[in-house]
């Protein structure tokens, strides 16, 4: 019988090795799998390359992973946010690498990686510093920049409901990068608020089909990053 359920967030991240590339879902706190990130901090894997739109807030979640020196390189579009101090400090000291990618190009690189497309051309960033050193090709009279697909050893995402086969649905704008990261991760680990048996999610509304999901762990009442940041919590 197919069973992707894992008992704890710590078991879920136990195979993540030093040097791994890890995609982490979320746009700001919406969709951030904060319990999986905290378990990854406890697990101790380091020299990670992390793909996320941002770099976390305060001293919890992704910001805490960075603050605990587990991340060698961030691939993201917007490393500054209102309460983001951890990444800027390390970046200014030269202790963390940054690959800055336009947000839509980041999304398409992830989608392409998950779809088996090694590279694609986009008009985004043509004529800007972010296109420097990249191949440019004129197609039908317009210039496009070559961008490469992105894959990951692991993707960590959060959803609203998962079934036994790993079919997923999400909550509102917390969906953001999760469906494409699920496709692009060799091993995709999901934290879900609710776990149900196969057949209990209408196939017409499944957003991420279970083929893209390897492990599911139930976190019924996930923490809210903004509340932790407001309370000045520090993890661990």
């Amino acid at each position: 019988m197919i069973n992707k359920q894992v008992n704890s967030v710590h078991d879920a991240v136990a195979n993540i090795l030093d040097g791994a590339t890890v995609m982490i879902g979320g746009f700001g706190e919406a969709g951030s799998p904060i319990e999986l990130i905290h378990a990854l901090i406890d697990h101790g894997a380091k020299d990670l390359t992390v793909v996320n739109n941002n770099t976390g807030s305060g001293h919890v979640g992704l910001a805490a992973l960075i603050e605990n020196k587990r991340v060698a390189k961030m691939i993201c579009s917007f490393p500054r946010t209102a309460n983001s101090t951890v990444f800027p400090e390390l970046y200014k000291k030269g202790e963390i690498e940054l690959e800055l990618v336009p947000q839509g190009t980041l999304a398409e690189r992830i989608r392409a990686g998950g779809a088996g497309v090694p590279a694609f051309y986009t008009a985004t960033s043509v004529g800007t510093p972010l296109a420097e050193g990249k191949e440019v090709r004129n197609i039908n009279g317009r210039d496009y920049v070559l961008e490469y697909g992105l894959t990951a050893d692991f993707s960590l995402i959060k959803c609203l409901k998962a079934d036994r086969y790993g079919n997923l649905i999400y909550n509102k704008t917390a969906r953001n990068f999760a469906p494409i990261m699920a496709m692009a991760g060799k091993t995709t680990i999901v934290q879900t608020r609710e776990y149900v048996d196969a057949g209990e999610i209408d196939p017409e509304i499944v957003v991420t089909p279970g083929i893209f999901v390897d492990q599911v762990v139930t976190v019924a009442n996930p923490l809210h990053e903004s509340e932790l940041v407001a309370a000045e919590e520090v993890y661990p």
Partner: protein
Amino acid sequence: MNEQVIGWNREQMAERAAQDIPNGAYVNLGIGIPEKVVRYVPEGREVIYHTENGLLGMGDAPEPGKEDPELINAGKKLVTAIPGAAYFHHADSFSMIRGNHIDICVLGAMQVAENGDLANWSTGNPDAIPAVGGAMDLVAGVKTINVITQHCTRNGEPKLVSKCTFPLTGVGVVSRIYTDLAVVDVTPDGFKLVELAPGVDFDYVQERTGCTLNAA
């Protein structure tokens, strides 16, 4: 010191920009003054707002007690979804942008050049943390790019210039600019005045523009 003694204020700039949004348009609004455009779309027009983090049909801020930290806009502010809204993932959201499906984007600017080049993401200062978000995707893919900005910087430097000195967001992308002093179009012949703010004359705007402004 309040230098803005004449011309349009921020609300009026947003109100003026809203007049040019037609019924049925799919619109993406940048952070800052562009966000105010929502309030001024003329009555009788139905406009669908896109926020690139994954929502078509973005509504107002939620009432107290109805906030959901997982329902936010691109500026990470709490929002609502209108009846008939749709959620989608990031690759779909940027397919709407890159694939020319969004009709109008209204953005802020640091500089706009007379050929329509836009700079709005970086000063190029090596000490600053670079951050771009979706700006380059929006200007490359949305059908019409309009800008709302003060005509000059706080130090009185023109923001409408012959050539941008800051790193570009996109090349030749801007159509129309709404400033505190005027509405200006980008044309093949450079900047062209469309409309002056009340109490402002052409020479006043030309003096504060970094290159030739063609008369209306």
